[in-house]
């Protein structure tokens, strides 16, 4: 509880005017755009959170249509991720591949998105068929695009088709026009393109914050792990910044469609554009929350200072920070990349919300970073972050503890359109393969990918952006790399499979689940793959010992994924829920749920839509969409028990070194849990005992969780569960499930 003391004298003084500008190509762009299609429409503002229409654009046929948002869509799917899944279901067939023209990218903000009075209310949800997992992926992203899309008159945007030339879609919610332009030759990397297009489409300087650009970067063209950047204009820095829809390769689909950017220009934002049913309740709830942040945050997580990077040192202290491809949980050099460093490196005198009204303000930025490598060598840039995931994934997990390199890796990931989480985990896998001789200098085309070799790491990233060399192999992701290495005969297949941290084809995010059975489920028993946004149960399970039985773990793996799904239906950010808690939270029943904040969310939904709900209804709303997504996975030929399998690295110690780094813990478990005396046994024998025990426990956990979720032991939602949720109204959904029952 020795909190870090913030020392303002250590804050770097940055001269923003020295940041590299990319407006040189503005004129060429302005004159070079060739309009392929222009359609006029009537802009509108939401009423009680909904415009009641969505926009469909086909970048191949140039069809532009408005579609009604029906009452059934609102009742069953709410918005956001729900709308995304609904549209995607209607767009694709079970045989559709990610790079078929039918595949869609859907961006939908959700009914509450766009209010400005509560923290974390500017999120868009992006859904597509993932090139990595071949099932729907959903990503929750900040930036101004979602709210501006809503204030331009649409509750969702569907992008379908494949263009033969690079196009830019422009939605002007002020003038009421939608334009598809053929883009001139030019940059694709986000930090250049985002700045250029923001200035191109804004009418004047005051209009800059009303423009948001969705784009990706060069690496999305040559890898399966491309992400999307959603921009927002940072007035104080005078620069365009980005939040990322990272996971699952959405950026890859975007470039496969030859979309260079989607730009929305909305009206000037005011506090009432979402036209909620009960603005007073929203105002009251928002002000109460802002006060809570002011009073509590300095004594709790200090999110306003550090953003999520504050957990770097926490995870390290609890032996949970992924180090060297999730082998170990802490490292003596962690202090070089923990929040005491970032506090000084990130500019502190500014407002870092990724949407108006976010008093949690986690979107930190490091200004004045001069790049050392790559095509932008020597440029001075602003780097977003680093967030915890970046510091852990690009940093400790790969043994990179040099903060300057970490920022550079972070920067290039962002501008090239690479998911940092994915990149961190796949690089950690590559480096471990290198350590164990599965890879060597010859096989990597000369890259010495040893732990902590940030230069080789960066070169691999540049290769990924150029589509050359080993970078191209890396861009396939862990799952395809495993198959490739095994096919080449480069190592023991079991070892390769054990240490490749992916499930369903998606790379694990940056937490160590090895010692928490509940978290093993929290990662593997997910809809889209191992991202911690469904459940983060490590403390509850491993440290607090609050989930002693399979039933207790299953209950947590029922409640939290559903609760957290709800953020994505409505356009909320998860962080303001539990990265600060009210002063009296500790005396509440079930403090983990942060009951007062749950009530805030219930109130905000009701006050926005005018539909009265309870906290139980909230869970039901999520359960509909969650189960629909599970059935969607099954429809795509996945989504069964076998697809929830977890790599052994996520369940227990794969190697001798791992076991021996925690001998005391593991030996004790043998004695206490298995009743086996470890004395006299070799490490290999003990590891084998653990493996059987841990694998078996994971399987038992699956049984308990599936049962609690109302699924068969094969992971299929039962007809009864579908009826309970009202999903039996969709014959196609029922038909998918029937094949398995």
């Amino acid at each position: 509880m020795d909190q870090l003391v913030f020392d303002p004298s250590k804050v770097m003084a940055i001269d923003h005017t020295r940041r590299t500008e990319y407006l040189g190509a503005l004129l060429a762009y302005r004159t070079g755009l060739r309009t392929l299609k222009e359609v006029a429409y009537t802009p509108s503002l939401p009423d009680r959170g909904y415009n009641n229409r969505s926009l469909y654009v086909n970048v191949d046929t140039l069809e532009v249509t408005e579609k009604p948002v029906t009452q059934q869509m609102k009742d069953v799917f709410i918005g956001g991720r729900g709308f995304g899944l609904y549209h995607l279901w209607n767009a694709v067939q079970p045989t559709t591949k990610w790079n078929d023209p039918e595949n869609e990218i859907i961006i939908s903000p959700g009914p509450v998105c766009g209010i400005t009075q509560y923290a974390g209310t500017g999120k868009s949800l992006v859904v597509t068929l993932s090139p990595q997992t071949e099932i729907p992926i959903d990503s929750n992203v900040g930036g101004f695009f979602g709210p501006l899309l809503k204030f331009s008159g649409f509750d969702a945007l569907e992008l379908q088709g494949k263009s033969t030339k690079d196009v830019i879609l422009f939605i002007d919610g002020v003038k009421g026009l939608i334009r598809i332009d053929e883009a001139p030759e030019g940059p694709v990397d986000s930090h250049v393109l985002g700045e250029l297009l923001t200035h191109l489409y804004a009418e004047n300087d005051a209009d800059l914050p009303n423009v948001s650009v969705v784009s990706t970067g060069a690496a999305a063209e040559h890898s399966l792990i491309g992400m999307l950047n959603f921009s927002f204009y940072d007035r104080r820095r005078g620069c365009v910044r980005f939040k990322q829809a990272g996971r699952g390769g959405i950026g890859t689909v975007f470039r496969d469609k030859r979309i260079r950017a989607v730009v929305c220009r909305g009206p000037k934002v005011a506090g009432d554009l979402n036209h909620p049913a009960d603005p007073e309740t929203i105002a009251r709830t928002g002000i109460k929350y802002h006060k809570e942040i002011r009073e509590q945050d300095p004594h709790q997580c200090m999110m306003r200072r550090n953003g999520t990077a504050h957990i770097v040192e926490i995870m390290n202290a609890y032996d949970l920070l992924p180090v060297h491809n999730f082998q170990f949980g802490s490292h003596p050099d962690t202090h070089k990349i923990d929040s005491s460093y970032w506090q000084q490196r990130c500019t502190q005198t500014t407002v870092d919300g990724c949407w108006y009204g976010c008093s949690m303000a986690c979107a930190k930025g490091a200004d004045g970073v001069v790049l050392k490598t790559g095509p932008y060598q020597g440029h001075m840039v602003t780097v977003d972050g680093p967030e915890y995931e970046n510091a852990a994934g690009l940093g400790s997990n790969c043994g990179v503890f040099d903060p300057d390199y970490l920022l550079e890796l972070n920067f290039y990931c962002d501008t090239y359109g690479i998911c940092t989480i994915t990149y961190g985990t796949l690089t950690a896998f590559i480096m471990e393969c290198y350590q164990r001789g599965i890879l060597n200098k010859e096989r990597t085309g000369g890259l010495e990918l040893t732990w902590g070799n940030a230069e080789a790491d960066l070169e691999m990233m540049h290769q990924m952006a150029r589509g050359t060399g080993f970078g191209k192999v890396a861009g396939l992701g862990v799952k395809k790399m495993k198959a490739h290495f095994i096919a080449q005969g480069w190592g023991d297949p079991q070892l390769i499979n054990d240490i490749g941290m992916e499930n369903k084809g998606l790379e694990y995010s940056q937490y160590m689940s090895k010692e928490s059975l509940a978290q093993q489920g929290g990662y593997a028993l997910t809809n889209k793959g191992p991202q911690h946004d469904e459940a983060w149960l490590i403390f509850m399970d491993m440290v607090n010992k609050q989930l002693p039985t399979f039933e207790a773990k299953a209950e947590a793996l029922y409640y939290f994924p559903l609760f957290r799904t709800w953020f994505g239906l409505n356009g909320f950010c998860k962080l303001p829920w539990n990265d600060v808690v009210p002063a009296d939270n500790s005396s509440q029943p079930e403090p983990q749920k942060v009951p007062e904040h749950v009530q805030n969310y219930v109130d905000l939904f009701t006050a926005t839509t005018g539909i009265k709900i309870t906290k139980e209804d909230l869970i039901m709303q999520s359960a509909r969409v969650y189960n629909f997504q599970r059935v969607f996975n099954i429809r795509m030929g996945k989504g069964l028990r076998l697809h929830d399998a977890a790599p052994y690295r996520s369940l227990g110690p794969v190697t001798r070194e791992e076991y021996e780094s925690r001998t005391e813990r593991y030996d004790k478990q043998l004695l206490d849990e298995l009743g086996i005396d470890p004395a006299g046994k070799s490490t290999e024998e003990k590891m084998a005992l653990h493996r059987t025990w841990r694998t078996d426990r994971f399987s038992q956990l699956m049984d308990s969780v599936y049962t609690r979720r109302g699924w068969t032991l094969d992971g299929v939602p039962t007809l009864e569960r579908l009826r309970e949720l009202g999903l039996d109204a969709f014959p196609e959904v029922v038909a998918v499930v029937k094949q398995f029952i």
Partner: protein
Amino acid sequence: MGVIVVNEEPLGWHEGMTVRDILRAKNYRFPMLIIHVNGLLIAKPDYGTTTVPDSAIVQVIHLISGG
């Protein structure tokens, strides 16, 4: 030497041991904790001054953040 139980694991006890001492001993550095000593909720400002009796049952609940 006495023993207390912290999150279901034994920990050596000494005379005058405070809640803060427990947090140090366990390296519990997370800022959002809920601590009960023998069922009694201890407020954060009192961590340094609340002494823990021998054989106490201590629960240190870590809330969730980040994630």
